[in-house]
């Protein structure tokens, strides 16, 4: 502790020299630096879109004005249908994804540790991953009838393999030295798993979780058509209805909503998680990034 205190003193003394002084200002600057390129990209995309519409390439009932789509989105926000739909879908996504993470982690852990299982079923996981959601619908209905559970089942079958694969990849690429260090410290089986393998495969696992989220979401969009529980306006139903009605502004408004949710989840959840891991592990090198 003495050392730390001495250092702090010295650092304080150095302030007189030429040290970065105002961390609060710097944080605002950093936030802004992370924000404006997104705004710029958005503006650029909207501008391009508008230009294409103005070029008259396609009639506006096929390719509507950005303004039409945004106001459709605004209307939906206004009359509450968007919040209701997003709420229902996000709740399903969260529940299903959480279950998928649990199932995926369990499967991934088992398969990555038990060599026999690995040989027997390793490739099966990717096989399952390639199975389109609609193939599971009959089975889902068989087991769960027409219920929310059927939707969750489809999400889990969609996302769990991706998460398991992420964990397996993560575990496969742990530097052997760390595993050896764990074994030397007396960690065997479960302890080795808990204290070494799991934390060491975290980067690959988070990558798998991210891909799993995409699978979960896509499966959900399909699965929500499985059971349209009387006028519950989920996002999946909105998407399908917009398609059925050939409603281009409606379709694009729903697509925008999906994009916004995807971007938000990625930057708020996965981005933060990934940055936290990389900061802790010292994988963010100012000199090289």
């Amino acid at each position, binding site marked *: 502790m003495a*050392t730390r205190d001495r250092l702090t003193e010295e650092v304080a003394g150095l302030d007189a020299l030429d040290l970065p002084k105002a961390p609060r200002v710097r944080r605002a600057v950093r936030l802004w630096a992370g924000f404006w390129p997104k705004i710029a990209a958005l503006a650029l995309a909207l501008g391009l879109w508008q230009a294409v519409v103005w070029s008259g390439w396609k009639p506006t009932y096929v390719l509507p004005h950005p303004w039409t789509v945004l106001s459709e989105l605004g209307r939906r926000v206004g009359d509450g249908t968007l919040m209701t739909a997003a709420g229902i879908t996000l709740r399903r996504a969260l529940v299903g994804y959480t279950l998928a993470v649990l199932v995926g982690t369990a499967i991934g852990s088992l398969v990555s540790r038990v060599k026999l299982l690995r040989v027997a079923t390793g490739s099966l996981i990717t096989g399952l991953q390639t199975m389109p959601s609609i193939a599971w619908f009959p089975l889902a209905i068989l087991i769960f009838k027409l219920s929310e559970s059927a939707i969750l089942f489809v999400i889990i079958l969609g996302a769990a393999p991706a998460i398991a694969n992420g964990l397996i990849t993560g575990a496969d690429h742990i530097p052997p030295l*760390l595993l050896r*260090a764990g074994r030397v*410290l007396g960690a065997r089986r479960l*302890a080795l798993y808990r204290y070494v393998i799991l934390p060491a495969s*975290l980067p690959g696992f988070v990558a798998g979780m991210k891909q799993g989220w995409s699978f979960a979401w896509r499966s959900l969009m399909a699965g929500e058509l499985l059971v349209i529980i009387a006028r519950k306006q989920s996002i999946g139903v909105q998407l399908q209805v917009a398609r059925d009605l050939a409603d281009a502004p409606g379709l694009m408004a729903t697509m925008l909503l999906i994009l916004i949710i995807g971007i938000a989840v990625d930057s708020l959840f996965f981005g933060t998680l990934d940055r936290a*891991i990389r900061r802790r592990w010292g994988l963010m090198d100012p000199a090289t990034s």
Partner: protein
Amino acid sequence: MTATLSHGPAAHTKAAEAAVRVDAVSKIFGHGPEAVQALDRLTLQVDRGEFVCLVGASGCGKSTLLHMLAGLDSPTAGSIAVEGRTGLMFQEAALFPWLTVAGNVALALRLRGVGRAERRPLVTSLLEMVHLEGFASRRPHELSGGMRQRVALARALAQNADVMLMDEPFGSLDAMTRDLLHAELERLWTERRFTVLFVTHNVREAVRLADRVLVLTSRPGRLSASFRVDIPRPRRIETPAVSALAGEITEQLSVEVRRHGHA
């Protein structure tokens, strides 16, 4: 394969005195024309509570031997017996990047079964021993090379093993720090009387610390010579007695290296 491996008290009956028995152990990496023979029918023995240093040219199989003694690898031929729990300090620091300095040391304690309450003071005292008390909450990537090595030392000592295998533990430390840690290690060893097999390239260091210094031949490793160090403890690394014996061992080493050609 005749290779056999036995760990723990089962091997005890065989030789009451020996904590480590290495019997005609060969180790070959790979197959066919790509094969590298690291060790060739190496036989050695370390008594319980003995401090043995191992010196030998780069690539002669010292690390390989230590890994096999720790049960991380098995010999291609020959047999190995180790009595009691082994601890290994790797040639690299091998710290867990997701844990802090304190966390790395604490994990060793936890896996040894030390309760949560006892862990904290033990971690503090171990970090003090390696002079890193101010760095408990840092992560490995924030440390210098020598500091990392000291954390690894603290972690290895936290294991409280019966047989301590150390692979160039002080290689990247300055002379002052090393002297201090020599004294600490010797103190601990005198207190607890664990068995030590210590690899080093610094022959003076070997003489400073060891009861016996073993010299390995160049690849493939084989036992070339064994020197008993009778200089009374506490020893100091600068004394003429240490220098003299170190000179003798160095001579033997260079004969070895010259005979085998270079690695």
